[in-house]
């Protein structure tokens, strides 16, 4: 019999099960140790995932998940100096730039030129201070899901006419029209009258900034109220979601062509992609969560030590038995596999129990923290794999010792 004989494993497992059964207390304590470690690992991992996900969702809400933005500059990770150079060097993005992009793109890319500033919104003697006013194009509502709960977005016709209509964020309408139906109501923004045609559902916050303080209006209406913005932000999206990267390239190339940038010349505009803003978010979560994995790894190592110890004791106590079985024909492979199976069994069952505990803790925690937390498949499989692997690592030394046992000496043991 060698390690290549399949029956060795079946028998080994059966023997291991019997050994574990005959010492339930010892095995379950070791399993408990492994359960605590696996539960910690799973909870930490799920917690970190949950944080990263909620940050990502917040940035997607603020940004749109497969849209991108063309702007004069993005603050990003630039040094102050490089940022200043960009602000100074890059030309403003104008309406005619956007018209050009639109013409070149045909129906492949959607663009929405957007101007933004803070202003107060007034209705019926109430004032909402510092709302974020966006003058934009009707295409925006196809580019980003602004989450209109009631009413409608403004139309292309209204955009062209600069009609005095707005889509309003939930915080704005809640403050201005408590208990009344805001749809169709007049508001004053920048000294001009507007009518609410759409209301956003509550969007929450992104990076501590409320997304419910927004007002969306046709850009021509915005310019009438506030004058033209120096430089526009252009929201954009591929009409075919599969072609997002292509659309980005298209925007980049079109803009370079319009600005007569030679090959190799630096761009005089920035394209901000969700990935760019996402990597920033992940960087923050990584820094915050850096301490989690090492700490849970320590727990796993401690649990491995406990399982090793238990298996070692088991081997020591069964020395005579192992000696007899070897004497009547059991191979070293049998003993090796059987011992490894014992530690793996303890670790794996412990791991499963740990996962169950983790699931319970997480369902309690998600209520308390307000972030949905549940075990994901990668975490589950990873934790089980970690538990199984820990079993092998833990069993290695005892198994080697059991297999290397000298038969005569073992039988001589009292």
């Amino acid at each position, binding site marked *: 019999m060698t390690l290549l004989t399949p029956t060795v494993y079946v028998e080994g497992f059966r023997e291991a099960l019997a050994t574990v059964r005959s010492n339930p*207390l*010892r095995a379950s*304590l*070791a399993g*408990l*140790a492994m359960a*605590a*470690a696996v539960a*910690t690992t799973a909870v*930490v991992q799920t917690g970190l995932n949950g944080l990263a996900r909620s940050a990502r969702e917040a940035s997607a809400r603020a940004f749109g998940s497969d849209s991108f933005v063309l702007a004069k500059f993005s603050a990003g990770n630039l*040094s*102050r*100096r490089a*940022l*200043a150079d960009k*602000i*100074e060097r890059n030309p403003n993005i104008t309406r005619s730039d956007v018209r050009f992009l639109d013409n070149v793109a045909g129906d492949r890319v959607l663009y929405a030129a957007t101007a933004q500033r803070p202003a107060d919104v007034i209705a019926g003697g109430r004032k909402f*201070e*510092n709302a974020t006013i966006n003058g934009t194009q009707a295409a925006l509502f196809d580019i980003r899901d602004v989450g209109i709960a009631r009413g409608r977005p403004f139309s292309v016709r209204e955009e062209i006419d600069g009609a005095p209509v707005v889509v309003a964020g939930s915080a704005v309408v809640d403050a201005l029209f408590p208990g009344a139906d805001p749809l169709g109501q007049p508001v004053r923004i920048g000294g001009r009258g507007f009518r609410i045609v759409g209301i956003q559902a509550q969007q929450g916050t992104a990076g501590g900034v409320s997304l419910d303080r927004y007002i969306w209006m046709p850009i021509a209406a915005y310019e009438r109220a506030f004058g033209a913005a120096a430089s526009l932000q252009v929201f954009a999206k591929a009409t075919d979601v599969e072609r997002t990267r292509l659309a980005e390239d298209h925007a980049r190339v079109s803009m370079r062509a319009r600005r007569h940038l030679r090959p190799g010349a630096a761009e005089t505009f920035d394209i901000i992609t969700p990935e760019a803003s996402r990597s920033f978010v992940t960087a923050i979560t990584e820094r915050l969560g850096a*301490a*989690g994995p090492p*700490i*849970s790894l*320590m*727990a796993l*190592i*401690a*649990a491995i*030590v*406990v399982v*090793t*110890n*238990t298996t*070692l*004791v088991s081997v*020591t*106590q069964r020395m005579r038995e192992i000696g007899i079985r070897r004497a009547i024909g059991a191979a070293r492979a049998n003993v090796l596999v059987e011992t490894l199976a014992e530690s793996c069994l303890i670790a794996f069952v412990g791991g499963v129990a740990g996962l169950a505990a983790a699931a319970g803790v997480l369902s309690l925690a998600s209520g308390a923290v307000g972030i949905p937390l549940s075990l994901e498949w990668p975490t589950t499989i990873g934790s089980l794999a970690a538990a199984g692997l820990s079993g092998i690592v833990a069993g290695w030394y005892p198994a080697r010792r059991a297999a290397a046992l000298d038969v005569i000496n073992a039988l001589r043991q009292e």
Partner: protein
Amino acid sequence: MSARSPWLRLVAEPAALAVDSLRTHRARSALAIAGIVIGIVTVVLVASVLANARNQVALLFRDLGTENVFAFHLTGDPYVTPNEKEARRTPLKLSFIRDIQRLGTAIRDVGAQVIVPTASNGQVLVARAGGNESDTVLVEGASPALFDIIGAEFSRGRPFTELEDREGAHVAVVGASLARALFGSASPLGQTLTLAGDTYTVVGELQKRRGGFFGENRQDNVLNLPAGTVRKRFGDPDRLVLYMRAKPGQREECFRQAEAILRLLRKLPPTAENDFTLSTADQIIATFDGLSVRIGLVTVGLALVSLLIGAIGIANVMFISVTERTREIGLRIAVGARRRQVLVQFLLEAAFLSGIGGVAGVVTALGIGLLLTLAVSGFSAVAPAWAIVSGLVASVSVGIVAGYWPAQQAARLDPIEALRHE
């Protein structure tokens, strides 16, 4: 080991037995100890890192003077964009200095710090000297008394004079890191630097400040100009922090007076809320502690899982030990050993195991902490005394708790049954 003290007799013999049993089961005991070591190392290291980070931050604020009261028109860090609600508050004024000095009987000194925006109108502040430049420089205006009030020490040169402040002289006092970035190891005194198109002569260099976030104290990167110069060059300040030093032992009174005077100066009606924030180093540290305690609880809680697992290991070994020695225990009880003695024997054995683990763990954690402190600059993981002591106490008590159940099982053994055990 005579029977002089009954307590000694209760402990001495079981202790000897405990040591004996550890000796006979070396591998098993060593592994049980290793479990505790891992737990204690994790807990002590995590506690050290947290405690040091917290102390550095506390030092950062304490370094600004514990007898000082700070006033700012917003809540929070003057370098952070204000929230929407407070953005409309008007900033504090340089002229308040004189008024507060005149009216505040419990206030010894008043200084002002003006924060110059790092970017305005698309222009970004860059300090240049010779071939070097710094675009991470922070520019602040300082009234002449400020350096003394916040206890900033000069490694070279002098603070600004009243005359320089009044006349808006083009002089500068540079922080330690900034001095190194712009002038290398040479003395910056008398050298010139340019900032936003103007030339300034360096009249002083500050010593490195203590404390910081992750080893950095932003004061070390500050280019100080006289507050009067800043006002002439950059206009009336948007962000001005007043530092009021109390007369000895009168900080509370100073705080009250500062509030009353500022309300007066800002013409607040009696019912209105303060449109400024007063704080002291202790208050800021207390707020920060509220946050760090929460982070600390979570991380130390995670670290405690390792210790818990170590404890489970001890309990397991003790159960095994009790089972193996059933006959022996039965015999001892049969020939007259008291159950308490048996209980103490096993408790001691458990405490002994975990105690050794605790000592080894603390020593290991100290070593790793020292290595980390030496290897990673700006990072400190030296274990504070309380972490060492609580690590040791925790290890021993964890052993006793983990050992109690097995020890009780041993003490409750029926001698007849035990002797029958094969």
